[in-house]
């Protein structure tokens, strides 16, 4: 009995060792890797890993050796070449979608995405998304090719990520970013606010509390209004953009994107779903849901987000209609009396 117990406990401790040791070794290993690779002077620019950016990616959660399998404890003294796993091993669907495009002939995955810094679509800003494209596509060329056919091409290019149109994603979401005024010109310019910029406003509190007053992780129209009216935040403005609802790597332009009403039409459900993206400490973004239809509020919901045909407000339409109808009072009212009294004017 006693012997059995000892045997059992021996097996158990062996089992625990088998299970835990590799995990702890793996965790240790990432620290070991970064011990050298986060120092550009030690490993050189090419092998440098920005620790702050890497540790916040999903890839970091998997540890270094998941992708670089050949690395041993003796690295780099063993002289073994370090293997890189293929992106498509995990990202099979997106990868094969991309490989079918003409883009694939010119750029590999890592030409656009740095696997040690990459974030998901929902955690990046419009600029982050376009940064990939602008590595090859010159801003002036892009503007020129769009100006020929797209009204307000400069505005479209400044406000939208390229993949809003150059993608096969069918659904869009409205994402609001906080911007702050910078006195570079008389009227000021409005770059996207970073975590530190907003921390100056929120102080001790979390930056989300600037808008999400009740802390329910959701932004109501009333909270948006309060934020926009608050004189203390006079230099903070919400800037809206449209991003694809899901990630697609088919970068072709669908024909319907040339039809302006694909976006500029207030059909059912248009402009209803929106999010506010708060910058996080590590340079990414965290989205928070916003009340349905807040984009349609005439003045105080999102004063700087307006899309012709899409964000028209119903109350404004009614006021407009009343004004136009008012224009017919004179012809109809006066005209009727004029007709009834026509005999008085016969000389």
């Amino acid at each position, binding site marked *: 009995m006693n012997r059995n117990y000892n045997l059992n406990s021996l097996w158990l401790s062996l089992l625990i060792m088998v299970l835990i040791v590799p995990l702890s070794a793996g965790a240790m290993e990432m620290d070991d890797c970064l011990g050298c690779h986060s120092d550009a002077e030690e490993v050189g620019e090419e092998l440098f890993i920005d620790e702050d950016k890497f540790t916040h990616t999903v890839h970091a959660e998997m540890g270094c050796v998941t992708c670089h399998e050949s690395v041993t404890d003796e690295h780099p003294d063993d002289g073994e070449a370090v293997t890189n796993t293929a992106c498509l091993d995990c990202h099979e669907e997106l990868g094969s979608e991309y490989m079918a495009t003409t883009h694939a002939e010119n750029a590999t995955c890592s030409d656009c995405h740095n696997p040690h810094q990459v974030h998901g679509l929902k955690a990046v800003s419009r600029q982050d998304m376009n940064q990939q494209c602008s590595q090859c596509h010159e801003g002036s060329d892009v503007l020129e090719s769009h100006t020929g056919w797209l009204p307000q091409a400069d505005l479209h290019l400044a406000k939208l990520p390229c993949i809003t149109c150059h993608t096969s994603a069918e659904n869009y979401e409205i994402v609001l970013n906080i911007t702050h005024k910078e006195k570079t010109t008389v009227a000021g310019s409005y770059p996207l606010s970073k975590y530190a910029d907003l921390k100056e406003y929120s102080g001790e509190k979390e930056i989300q509390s600037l808008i999400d007053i009740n802390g329910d992780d959701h932004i109501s129209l009333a909270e948006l209004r309060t934020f926009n009216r608050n004189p203390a935040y006079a230099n903070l403005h919400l800037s809206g953009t449209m991003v694809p609802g899901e990630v697609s790597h088919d970068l072709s332009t669908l024909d319907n994107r040339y039809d302006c009403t694909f976006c500029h039409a207030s059909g059912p459900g248009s402009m209803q779903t929106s999010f506010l993206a708060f910058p996080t400490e590590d340079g990414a973004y965290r989205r928070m849901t916003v009340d349905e239809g807040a984009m349609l509020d005439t*003045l105080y919901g999102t004063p700087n987000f307006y899309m012709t045909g899409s964000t028209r407000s119903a109350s404004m339409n009614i006021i407009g209609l009343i*004004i136009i109808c008012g224009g017919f009072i004179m012809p109809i009212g006066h005209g009727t009396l004029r007709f009834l*009294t026509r005999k*008085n004017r016969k000389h």
Partner: protein
Amino acid sequence: MAEELQDQEHQHQIYLQPIPVRIWHWLNAFGIVTLTVSGAQIRFPEYITLLGSYKSAIYLHNTAGFVVAISFSLWFFYYTFVARTMANLYVPKVEDLKSGILRQVKFYFLTYFLGWENPHHPTPESKFNPMQKSVYLAIMFVMMPLVSLSGIFLTNVDPLRGLIVMVGGLKLLAGLHFLLACSLIAFLPTHVYLATLGRTPTEHIKTMWTGWEDEEEHGEETETGDLVASR
């Protein structure tokens, strides 16, 4: 010879609307109708598709807006610097404000129905009655500049972003542009209707086309004229 003939032809007429004003008027009228239709399609693309694609509606709206803004500037330049009658024609005088407007309102809404004559007799120096002056002052000096200016801002959102935020945001600007446009559209039926209140329904409209208006008959010669003269 031709001049003499013309003089004879117009001997009981006065030259009320000089040619630059007439060109401006009809260009403006055509522009505003175009802006109304294209603007309606831009705001309600799923209901109004009169002008084909949304893009063509936008290009047409921008072009018509540009034409109206330029013709407005020429109109302003003509009256201020060439004819030099802007202040005289468009700014109501103290007299107009004190009694003129009331007299004109009384005519349009009461004595007109009794068959009295219009108390105001248009001359090239005083084309508009006191009521017209006030309405046109608001339209030409407040609404038209504001609607044009907001339109210019809305077609240059990216370069003028900072200024737009300063004036209260894009939505305020778009809302202002829309409501001003509605007010100008509302003025159209009133304007066209009032234009039919001449001695014949087409008298004023013909004047806006030819420039000539029949001279007022002498007040003493008509029954109603007596009433006007006796006041």
